[in-house]
């Protein structure tokens, strides 16, 4: 008997009876070693305006989120609790906190009831119908977006299932007659507005009508079921789409655990010095011989694709066709000799003291990423366009050039924190090092025009005294851990990890000061 171990993840689905189609469903991504299972909260009669009446979360939803450990009973995200017992119990599973996926499948009941309220004159009044829908959808999406922010969830709104194409069935179920073409148009309008508002709010949207709806906007015959719902088989397609959205949007994934971590690390509550200055002046951190060693340690350079995504690290999309990343940047890994040298130069040496002073605490280099930019004449996109990184608190960045970088040859470029208009390009000889706060300044890797640029890019975590100042290189395409208290470590770690895991139990249950 062959037994395969896979990494499971739950998709929480909250909704009216349309959500029931997701019950007991799972999908797997065997190439990535991942499996996704639905966990359904069916709330009878749930409608957009009963999710958050008067600012109070629907009791059924609240109870579900509490039972699933997503929020604590005082209404705060579980990831923000300071109760050491709850935290210890959570980490005893061996899993870090993760950004939970929650899909809302709500609204169809509202539309059906709404149709029943329309007078004969209103049936063809597009302006009125659109205005009414806008009002409901704005509240619906605003509420879901608010939950996302308040509880640190990854939320997704599901498109409404189209109405049955059968006039008799529709009339029988709803006790109203409503022409097929017109009811299709009305549902299409609602879904179009839902897509529009979710995009505006930055909430993920799971389309389904491209295959569920026929040319009139009513339910495709292949999915007719009971006159109200679509055949439950549709939920597997939706789950695959939700998973794809999740896998494609994890580049800055993080949990609210960073907030409590940051409170642990940054006792002054003031911004770190590096956050105030944005970017340090470049200094030569390594000599020629050390540069040679580092270059020799660089390996596996390939385009910015994550071939082995996991649940406890944010990562690039696992798809080379993802349009955001042009084929002009390669990432790789760095071998043990390089990691040991980096530890010596950047952690134990004077550069390390400078980093500690600028971030205000000890630090761990939790990911070193060799990055090679090949020359091109185009405008920069992705990392080569000005951006901020949306790093979680306590994460800082560093860069070490492994080749000489002259003007317009791939230098790190940023807009200074003093508000002056002209971007500054960091040029320097091989071995030049800078530390920066990727949230404080607009920055980019400027496109090199004639020469290939090779550099080491560092993800730096500010840490409390109890944690270890490691240097670690994660798989290609991996970015930073979603939970700074616990994450997996690979073989490329100096000093080598005995457990393969970053975890310090004393940080979960801090010792009380002796009386």
């Amino acid at each position: 008997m062959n037994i395969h171990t896979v990494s499971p993840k739950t998709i929480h689905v909250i909704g009216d009876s349309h959500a029931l189609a997701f019950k007991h469903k799972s999908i797997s991504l065997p190439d990535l070693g991942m499996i996704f299972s639905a966990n359904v909260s069916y709330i009878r009669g749930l409608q957009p305006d009963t999710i958050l009446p008067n600012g109070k979360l629907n009791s059924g939803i609240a109870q579900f989120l509490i039972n699933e450990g997503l929020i604590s009973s005082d209404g705060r995200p579980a990831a923000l609790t300071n109760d050491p017992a709850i935290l210890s119990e959570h980490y005893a599973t061996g899993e870090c906190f993760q950004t939970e996926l929650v899909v809302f499948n709500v609204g169809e009941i509202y539309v059906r009831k709404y149709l029943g309220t329309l007078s004969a004159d209103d049936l063809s009044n597009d302006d009125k119908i659109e205005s009414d829908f806008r009002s409901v959808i704005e509240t619906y999406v605003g509420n879901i977006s608010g939950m996302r922010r308040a509880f640190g969830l990854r939320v997704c709104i599901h498109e409404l299932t189209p109405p049955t194409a059968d006039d008799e069935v529709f009339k029988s179920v709803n006790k109203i007659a409503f022409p097929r073409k017109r009811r299709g148009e009305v549902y299409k309008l609602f879904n179009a507005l839902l897509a529009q508002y979710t995009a505006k709010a930055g909430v993920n949207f799971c389309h389904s009508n491209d295959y569920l709806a026929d040319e009139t906007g009513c339910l495709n015959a292949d999915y007719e079921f009971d006159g109200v719902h679509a055949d439950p088989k549709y939920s597997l397609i939706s789950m695959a789409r939700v998973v794809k959205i999740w896998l494609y949007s994890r580049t800055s994934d993080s949990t609210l655990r960073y907030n409590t971590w940051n409170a642990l690390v940054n006792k002054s509550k003031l911004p770190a010095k590096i956050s105030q200055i944005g970017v340090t002046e470049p200094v030569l951190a390594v000599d020629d011989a050390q540069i040679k060693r580092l270059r020799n340690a660089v390996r596996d350079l390939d385009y910015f694709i994550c071939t082995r995504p996991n649940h406890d690290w944010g990562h690039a999309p696992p798809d080379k066709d993802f349009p955001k990343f042009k084929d002009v940047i390669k990432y790789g890994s760095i071998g043990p000799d390089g990691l040991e040298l980096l530890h010596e130069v950047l952690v134990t040496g004077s550069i390390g003291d400078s980093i500690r002073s600028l971030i205000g605490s000890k630090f761990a280099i939790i990911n070193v990423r060799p990055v090679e930019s090949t020359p091109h004449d185009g405008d920069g996109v992705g990392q080569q366009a000005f951006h901020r990184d949306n790093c979680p608190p306590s994460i800082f960045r560093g860069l070490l050039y492994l080749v000489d970088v002259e003007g317009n040859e791939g230098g790190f470029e940023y807009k200074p924190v003093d508000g002056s208009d002209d971007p500054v390009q960091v040029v320097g000889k091989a071995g030049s090092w800078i530390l920066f706060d990727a949230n404080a300044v607009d920055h980019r890797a400027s496109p090199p025009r004639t020469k290939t640029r090779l550099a080491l890019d560092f993800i730096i975590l500010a840490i409390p005294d109890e944690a270890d100042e490691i240097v670690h290189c994660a798989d290609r395409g991996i970015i930073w851990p979603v939970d700074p208290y616990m994450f997996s470590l690979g073989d490329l770690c100096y000093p080598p990890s005995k457990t393969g895991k970053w975890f310090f139990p004393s940080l979960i249950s801090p010792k009380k000061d002796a009386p």
Partner: protein
Amino acid sequence: MTSSYHTCPYNDLPDRAFFKKVGERNGDLSIVPDERVSLGPDDKVVSAGSCFAARIANFIRSSGLTYLFDDDRVVSDNDLVREESDAIFSLRYGNIYTTRHLLQLLQRVVGEEIIEPPVVVDGAGRYRNLSRPSVLSYDSVETLRSDDTAHIENIKTFIERATVFTFTLGLTEQWIDKESGITFPSAPGCGFGEYDESKHVFHNSTVEEVTAELRESIDLLQRINPELSIILTLSPVPLVATYTSVSAVEATFYSKSILRQAISNVLSDSSDTMASVTYFPSYEIIMNPYCIKENFAADMRTISEMGVDRVMDHFRRRFVRGGIDEPAISIDFAVDSPLVEQEPGPPSGVDPVCEEENIWNAYLNKKEAD
């Protein structure tokens, strides 16, 4: 006699108009986007004021918005100009607790009134500028003056570059140099310099004074940058001590009341000048009786992390544009926790003691009828 509720003018007001309804919202004031000022990725924010302003600066930085900052030292040589405390604002002006302090600083920025701040020597023999004594120390008076000149220039540059200026009012009590009229951020003799009754005088500003100083400060800010938006806030941090004859608690409420009234006075001006000036109720968010205990740390002076988070959540919903409106979310604990006491039911009749309760009764009556 029968009581009639159905014509009560409060009946159709939103929930936020009723104290008890606000209490159900876990400290949320049902804040709505500000009509005068909004913040987006292109905005550049400069902040100044009392300690609480530094917490706002933290939020600005962590929200993907641009917070302007400069080292603001004429030289970074520690022997010449030593950093004595962390830089927590856009520039090293230190805490600006009073409107008079802000006004005097801005008057220097526009060259309206050239008063050089008094200088003292500290225990280490280094020179301190009494307008910001805790911030920097100097090897000589010349270095201090040169740094001060550069600092004033930097303030001008930053106000010109900024799109939004936030100022947090903190105190009305202050100490003033009799000869120059310069106000100090702390009392002479309390850490820096010597208190001299013949040179220093205590002053507790009146609402008229604060109103005038604030109005003039806004005029000067907009003279430097006519496009500048201004967000005023009031620090909820109580006074450390009072020099008046009343308790520090009474003095705190006096001081905050004066400042709050002055802000309202200024904002009631309907002229174009005030069209881009607004108030953010950080004071009220923290002092909300429904959550005041969790908003303060155990010393009842420091704002707790939860309190700061609560203020910043309101700040984001009030000012940060993009996306769509998001409500604050609370959970009805009674659903899940039998240990939580239930709120007593509404009174059934007119309260003969508290006339104001009638408003609440009318609201409940109306709701029942609906």
